Structure formats: C-alpha cells, structure tokens
C-alpha cells in the first residue's frame, strides 16, 4: 500500500466517524460531474458581446456524460454497495438534465447555481466543481473527457489538480481492485493499463459503454431524489473569483467556420477508377 492511498484511507475512515454514516469498506461512492447543455439538436446562438453560448433556453444532460453515469452505476453495482452522486453547475437551478441521470439510477445530486457563475471559464468551473465534489467526499470522480458544448477538455484535470487527487484520462474501462482504480486508458495504438490510488478523477470517453435507458420506475422515482442546491458562497468561494469576473480566459473573436470547398465531380465514362486512384495518390494514401 502506498503512503498516499494509506493516507486517503485514513482520511475516509475519519470522515465516516465524523459524519456518523455507516459505510461498508467495500462501498463505492462515486461522484459523476454532469453538464447540462443547450440541446445540440436545436443549437442556440452566441452572445454577440461576450462570445459566450446562449444558455437561456432549456438545458439537457450532455450525452457525453451518460457514459460516465453508466460506468459509475456499474461500479457501484459491482461493489455491492455505495451510491452515485451527480455534481453539476448550471444556471437558473436547472435540473431537467439531472433528472435523466437520476432516473438511470443515480441516488442524489448537488447542483451549484448562482448568477455570479455566468461567463465562467474552464478553470472557474473546475473550482466550483472541486468544492462541490469535496462536499460529496467520494471514492472516485467520473467525468466525461470533454463537453459537447465547450469542448475544452481541460476541466476534469483541473478538478483533479485542485483536489490534489490523481487523474486518469480517456478511460475505456474502469475497475476497482484492492482499493485502487485500474483503468484501461485509450491510446492511438490501443490502450494502456494504468493504476492509481483512490480517490481519483477518471475521465470517460464517449461510446465506451452503452448507457442504460431509465426504467419506468426509475423515471417515477427521479422526482423524489434529493437535489442539494448550492450557491457560490455555500462553497466558500468569492463571487469575483468565478464567473466572468474571475475568468482568466476570454473569447477574443468568433468567426464562421470556413465554407467547405466544393468537391470535384467525376462523371464515370468507364475511366472513373483512374481518376479515383489519381486522387488517392495525391493524398498519399495509396
């Protein structure tokens, strides 16, 4: 046992005593960070002044997060005890995206919602999530590799750094063995198997598991599951350290994506295969 994981165990043991909860040693308590985003099927516009995404419409759970939720639920089932807690930061107390994950089987949620958070950059988001995760006190944090609306892909490792916990990215499989996370980490060539002590932050790549559909009983139960709503001050953060005021990153300009050039049309008069071969040769793929 490494000194680090021993320390982590001690810390958790202390927490059980102080919180008075009865937790079994084998229980897995997992926090899954879930982002609620504008529906990509009905993409919103950008705010002209700030270049930020318009989040005033209905928000749904980022599809990328459904894989992490599924993986976390499976890990809890395998452990035979524990629970999945969702952690989310969203405007206007939005919970509709959380309800989807609660219907899948997550036990409860922590939602940070505060006007001061408008215009947060990735680091501000990470500060908020890290504080919220700390309140959950999980054995493991699961996050998506990147969100579908922001795509920075930096928030999970920032959360890990702020927590002082190890992070493993691009997981295709997670298992818990002897109190450690054993992760198959995707690489260009295949995958690496990585071990790290718990607690840790692991990011999950989209598509690696099949997210379950919520059962009807799950849907009906979702409404009564607790969603703990917190503001910035509840987390001990100053309002000017987050949101647009605290952001160290700004959108400098927004430009349309370059229009894709028209392709060449080859009319087959019996010779088209030669044109195709020539084209592929130019690309140096054959």
């Amino acid at each position, binding site marked *: 046992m490494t000194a680090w994981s021993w320390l982590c165990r001690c810390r958790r043991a202390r927490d059980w005593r102080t919180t008075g909860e009865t937790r079994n040693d084998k229980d897995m308590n997992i926090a899954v960070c879930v982002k609620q985003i504008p529906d990509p099927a009905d993409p919103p516009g950008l705010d002209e002044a700030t270049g930020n995404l318009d989040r005033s419409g209905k928000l749904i759970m980022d599809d990328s997060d459904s894989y992490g939720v599924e993986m976390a639920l499976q890990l809890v089932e395998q452990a035979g005890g524990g629970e999945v807690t969702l952690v989310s930061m969203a405007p206007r107390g939005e919970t*509709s995206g959380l*309800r*989807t994950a609660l*219907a899948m089987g997550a036990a409860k949620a922590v939602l940070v919602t505060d006007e001061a958070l408008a215009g947060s950059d990735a680091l501000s988001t990470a500060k908020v999530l890290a504080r919220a995760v700390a309140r959950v006190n999980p054995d493991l944090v699961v996050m998506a590799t990147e969100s579908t609306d922001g795509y920075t892909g930096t928030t999970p490792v920032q959360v890990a750094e702020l927590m002082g916990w190890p992070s493993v990215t691009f997981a295709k499989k997670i298992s818990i063995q002897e109190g450690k996370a054993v992760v198959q980490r995707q690489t260009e060539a295949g995958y690496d198997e990585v071990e790290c002590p718990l607690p840790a932050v692991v990011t999950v790549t989209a598509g690696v598991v099949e997210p379950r*559909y*919520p*059962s*009807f*009983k799950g*849907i*009906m139960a*979702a*409404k009564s599951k607790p969603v703990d709503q917190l503001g910035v001050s509840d987390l001990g953060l100053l309002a000017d350290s987050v949101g647009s005021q605290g952001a160290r990153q700004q959108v400098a300009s927004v430009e349309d994506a370059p229009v894709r050039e028209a392709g060449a049309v080859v009319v087959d008069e019996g010779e088209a295969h030669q044109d195709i071969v020539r084209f592929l040769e130019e690309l140096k793929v054959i």
Partner: protein
Amino acid sequence: MDFEETSEHQMLREAVSSIAAKYGHAYFVDQARSGGKVAELWGELAKAGYIGVGIPEQWGGGGMGIYELSIVCEELAAQGTPILLLVVSPAVNATLIERFGTDDQRSRWLPRFADGSMKMAFAITEPDAGSNSHNISTAATKDGDVYRLNGTKYYISGCDEAEAVLVVARTGADEQTGRGKLSLFVVDLDAPGVTYTPIPVEMTAPEKQFTVFFDNVEVPASRLLGAEHEGLREVFFGLNPERIMTSAIGVGIGRYALSRASEYARNRSVWGMPIGSHQAVSHPLAKAKIELEQAKLMLQKAAWAYDREKNGADGSRGSGVDTGEAANMAKYAGAEAAITCLDAAIQTHGGNGMASEYGLATLMGNARLLRTAPVSREMILNFVAQHSLDLPKGY
C-alpha cells in the same frame, strides 16, 4: 387548466423514443416482411417497465394509466415502429381482467401483462356479425364444470405470438329480443380444438391477422371473465382504451410522416431552392400538421378523462368530460391525421414517396387500417350523431 406534460411524461417519451429509434423503421419492415416479430424491441420495452406502465403497482406494473400507455404507443409509432398488440394486450385485455377478473385471474395474468412476458389476443369480430355484437354466433355452452366453445372469429391480430385469446362468446339469448347474451372467456391458443389460419392483408406489420376456429374447445369455468351473460356490458369497458390507443398509433404515424416530409422538403432542392419553400409543398404539410395537433389534443384529452374517470371509481372526482365521446373522437381524429400526414409526406417526396428506402409507403396499410379498425369511421360518426347530437338512430 394546464396543457404541459409532467417531466416524467417527457422522460417517458424520450426513453421510449430512444429505444424505438435504435431499432427503427427498417427493422420493423424487415421483421414484418420476413415473418419475424419485434421480440427484441418488445423485450427491451418490457424490461424497462414500459409495456406495463398502466398495470397497478400491486401486480408489478407502473401504476399509471392509459395516458402513459398511450405515450408509449405514440412514441413507438413516431419512430416508424408501431406495435398493434399494445392496443389489445396491455390496454383492452388487461383493463378487462383488472376490472372484472377474480383475484385468482388477476394474480395469474396481470403480473405477466406488467412485465410483458405474456401477450393476449382479443377476439370479438366474426364473419357474419361485423360491428353488430348482438349477432355474435360463437357459442359457449355450459357442460358440467366446463364450457364448450364453438365458432369462428376473424381479423384477430397476433394469434401466432399470443399465448391466449380473450373471446367474446354467446352464452344464451334474450327470450324477448332474441339478442345474444354474451360472456367473456380467456382461452389458451394451444388448447385442443383451437386452430387459426392467417388472413393475407396488405399491411406491413409484424402482427399478422388470423381467422380463429373453435371446435368444441373445452374451457374451464375458471376461465370465464366477469359475470356470465354480462359480456356485452363488460366489453365496453375495454373499448375506450382501445380507441385511445388506436388514436395514439395514428398520431405517432402522423408525426413520423411529417418529420420525414419536413426534413425532405428542407433539404431537397430542385429549382435552386428547397422544395419546402413552394407553397404547393408547404401548405399540405402545414395543414396536416394542424390536423395532427388537433388529433393529439383529442387523444390527450380522452386519455386524461379515461384515467380520471377510472380513478373516480376509487373515490376521487371524475373529469366531467364524457370519456366515451372523447375516446371516439380521438380515434376518428388520430386515424384521419395519420392518413392525411402520410399522404402529404408521400406527395412531398415525389417518386421517392413510394420508394422502400424512404420508409413511408410501407405504412400506407397501417394508416389506412386505422380508419376501419377496430371500429370504423362510420360507426364513430353514428355514435357522435346519436350520442353527442341526439340524432335519431338509423339502424
């Protein structure tokens, strides 16, 4: 007054829709044409508890009502995978068993409706009786502890995938009018003396239609559902769910067709602009959309009223809406909307409208059937004329 569905309803729609979308219309057509069934789709829906949403919780169901079951039905059809057996099995039959069954019958069948492990067909229509149920000639004659069933039913859906069939049979006759006294029986489809043969129909559906022959079939008295001779009155309790669910299939098919058509009309460009910018294309679709939304409102109203009325029997107040009228109107509107939307969608697609690839013409039989079955448009007009407008009866 509130027209917004709950977040649970929305989640139910999303979940059923994503399961159905995974299979899609091509799967539905492949199964229908190869003589296969939608067993995988049914199984996945059943496992998640969606087939049994309307069965009471004490029997393992979702404890909700016909509104939720109609959502399941509509969302399936809206993905191009309508399931006809939802109309008879968990809607008509489970309703009748829940209402008229003995404790033994309920505990025997309702849990299996709830988990979707059993399908039950429904047999009322006969070659010589048509919509006149008084003329039903299939007869169940009491013989000691059993009934002996003889007769023929036709246009019975899904006998090859159902385990049993709920049969409406004559057990006597009114001495004065000569009209049949009817009773309900649950008959195993593998019971000796039961045979069925498919009726070829021009409809692409995994559920096949059958003529069912009962040749001196021995039916234990424990299979009598409800009171002897009270079958006609009892069966009416299953008819409103049937109409509501049929409406849901119609609304779902309409949504499916319009979604395909509007996407095509936005993207198909012939004279340098999308065809949807031409009013000759857009107006029929807009008109169909209005009719579809009207039908959906009527469907929602009917399902809501049905559930309120049913719960009213347990002490809470009813809706004050005439459920029978609403269910009939919903069925009429749902069927007409399906036909209008599908026709407009096919026309929008030009020649492609008939191509298998576009998955529209494959549903023509299904949509058109809704105008005829389970109750014809004309019988609904009769009902509305007499019941709602107090016009004299002509038959």
